[in-house]
C-alpha cells in the first residue's frame, strides 16, 4: 500500500489534496446553511474566464484565475447587498458571462489544448511542486481564517440579526467568506477541475449535514468525508487508471448517498 507514497507526484497530489479538502468542507457547511450553495458553481465558471485570460496573456493561469475569482466574488456580494438583486441572480449572471468570456479568450488564444483540459477536468496527479506549495499555503490560510472566525460565522449563519446586534460585523465577514470561497474554488480546480469543483465544496458538507446533530459533528464529519474521498479517489485513480476528478466526486456522492439512506432509515 505504501508503495504509492514513494512516488513524488503522488505525495504532492496527496498533500495538496488533503489541505484543499479541509478548506472545501469547512466552507461548504457555511455556504449550504446560508443557502449559498450555488456560489461555488458560479465562481467556478468565472474562474474559467480567469484561466482563459492567463492562457491568453501567457502568465500563470492559476494566479490570474485567483485574481479574477476574488474580484468577481466581491462584485457578486456587493450586487447582492446593494443592487437589490437576489443572491442567485447575480451568481447566475456571472456564471454564464464568465463562461462566455472564457470561451472567447480561449478561442482567441488558440489554446483549446491539453493545458486547457487539465483546468476543465482537473489533473491533480500532474500537480507541480510550485503549485503544491501555493495550494497548501493558501488552503492553510483559508482554514486558519475560518477557524479564527468559526463562532462568528456560525452565529451569523444561524441568526443574522442577533449576531449583528451582538456587535459582529456581519457585512465584513460576508465579504471574507465570499473571498475565501473564491480562493478555495480556484484551489479545488487543481484537484477536480472547473467543471466539478463546486461538487467538492457542496457534496461532502451536504453529506455531513445529513446526520450531524451539532455543529462540531457537522464540521468533523464533512471534513472526514472530504479528505477520505480525495485520498481514496487518488488511490483508485492511480491503481485503476481512472480520472481522479470523477472518482473523487463520485466517492463523495457515495458517502452522501449512504448517509442520506441512513438518516431516512433511522426515523
Amino acid at each position: 500500500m505504501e508503495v504509492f507514497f514513494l512516488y513524488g507526484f503522488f505525495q504532492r497530489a496527496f498533500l495538496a489534496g488533503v489541505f484543499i479538502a479541509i478548506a472545501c468542507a469547512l466552507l461548504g457547511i457555511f455556504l449550504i446553511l446560508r443557502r449559498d450553495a450555488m456560489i461555488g458553481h458560479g465562481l467556478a465558471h468565472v474562474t474559467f474566464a480567469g484561466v482563459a485570460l492567463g492562457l491568453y496573456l501567457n502568465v500563470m493561469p492559476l494566479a490570474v484565475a485567483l485574481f479574477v475569482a476574488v474580484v468577481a466574488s466581491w462584485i457578486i456580494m456587493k450586487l447582492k447587498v446593494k443592487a437589490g438583486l437576489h443572491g442567485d441572480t447575480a451568481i447566475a449572471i456571472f456564471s454564464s458571462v464568465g463562461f462566455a468570456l472564457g470561451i472567447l479568450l480561449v478561442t482567441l488564444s488558440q489554446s483549446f489544448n491539453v493545458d486547457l483540459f487539465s483546468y476543465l477536468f482537473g489533473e491533480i496527479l500532474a500537480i507541480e511542486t510550485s503549485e503544491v506549495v501555493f495550494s497548501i499555503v493558501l488552503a492553510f490560510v483559508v482554514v486558519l481564517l475560518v477557524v479564527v472566525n468559526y463562532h462568528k460565522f456560525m452565529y451569523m449563519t444561524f441568526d443574522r440579526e442577533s449576531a449583528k446586534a451582538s456587535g459582529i460585523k456581519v457585512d465584513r465577514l460576508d465579504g471574507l467568506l465570499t473571498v475565501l470561497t473564491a480562493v478555495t474554488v480556484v484551489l479545488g480546480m487543481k484537484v477536480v477541475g472547473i467543471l466539478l469543483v463546486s461538487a467538492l465544496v457542496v457534496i461532502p458538507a451536504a453529506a455531513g449535514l445529513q446526520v450531524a446533530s451539532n455543529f462540531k459533528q457537522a464540521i468533523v464529519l464533512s471534513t472526514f468525508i472530504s479528505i477520505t474521498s480525495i485520498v481514496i479517489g487518488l488511490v483508485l485513480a492511480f491503481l485503476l487508471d481512472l480520472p481522479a476528478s470523477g472518482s473523487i466526486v463520485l466517492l463523495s456522492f457515495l458517502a452522501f448517498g449512504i448517509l442520506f439512506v441512513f438518516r431516512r432509515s433511522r426515523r
Partner: protein
Amino acid sequence: MDSVAAEQKLLIEIQNVCYDYGYGDVLKDVSFPINSHDFLAIIGPNGSGKTTLLKIILGLLKPRLGEVTIMGKTVEEFADWKKIGYVPQKATHIDSLFPVSVKEVVAMGIQSSRRFPRRTRGEDICCISRALQQVGMGEYKNRRIGNLSAGQQQRVFIARALANHPKILMLDEPTTGVDAKTQEHFYDMLQRLNREKEITIVLITHEVGIINKHVEQVACLNQTLVYHGSHDEFCRSDEFKRMLADGHHLVSHHH
C-alpha cells in the same frame, strides 16, 4: 451596597426618534429614558413600531431623525454590545434543521465577543451551564435547537444573552402564544433576573393582559409615545381603560 443598588442610572436614552421604511412614518418623535434596574414593558398594537424602535436601539436600523445614546455613548460609538442582551421576536426565523446544539447556541454568545476565540472549556462550560440553569434549560444542553418548542428556544436565546453577563435584556414579544401558566413562570424568571442579577428588563408586547404584577414601568407606543410612566399609574390611566375596552389584544388603528 443597598444604596448603590437602589440608585437609578440612565442606561439608554431615546431622543426624538423618527423612522420610516419609505412608506410614511412608523415612529414619530419618540423620546423616553431607560434606567438601570427598570422592568419596562413597551406595549402597543401590532404594527405600532415596537420592533422598529428596538432595532434602532440596537443599531440595526438608523433613525431618520433623533438619536439613541447607550451608557452615555451614541449607538455608533457604543462598542460593548455584549452588555445588551437581545432576544428576537419568536424564533420562527430559525432553520429547524440547523445542526447546532443548545450548548453551542449559548457558546456563540460568549465566543463571538472575543477577538481570538479559544476552545470552549473550563470557565466557559461553567458559564454556559449556569446561564442554561437560570432559564431552567439545564437538562437540554445537548439537544438540537430545532427539536425544542418555540418557548424553549426562546429560553435558550435568553441564556445566550445571559452568558455574557448583560446589564440589560431586551425581549421582543417573548410570550406570544404561550399558555398562561408558562407565562407566569416566565415572568417569575425575568423578575428573578431583574432583582437578583440586577439586570434591566425591557420587554415588548402587544397584549395588555401581559402587563402584570412584575412590570414596573410602561411605555405605550403607537407611532408616537402615547404614555410613559409607572405601571401603577398606567393601570389608573384613561389610556389603559381605553385599551382594555378594545379587548386585551390591541388592534392598530391602521387595521
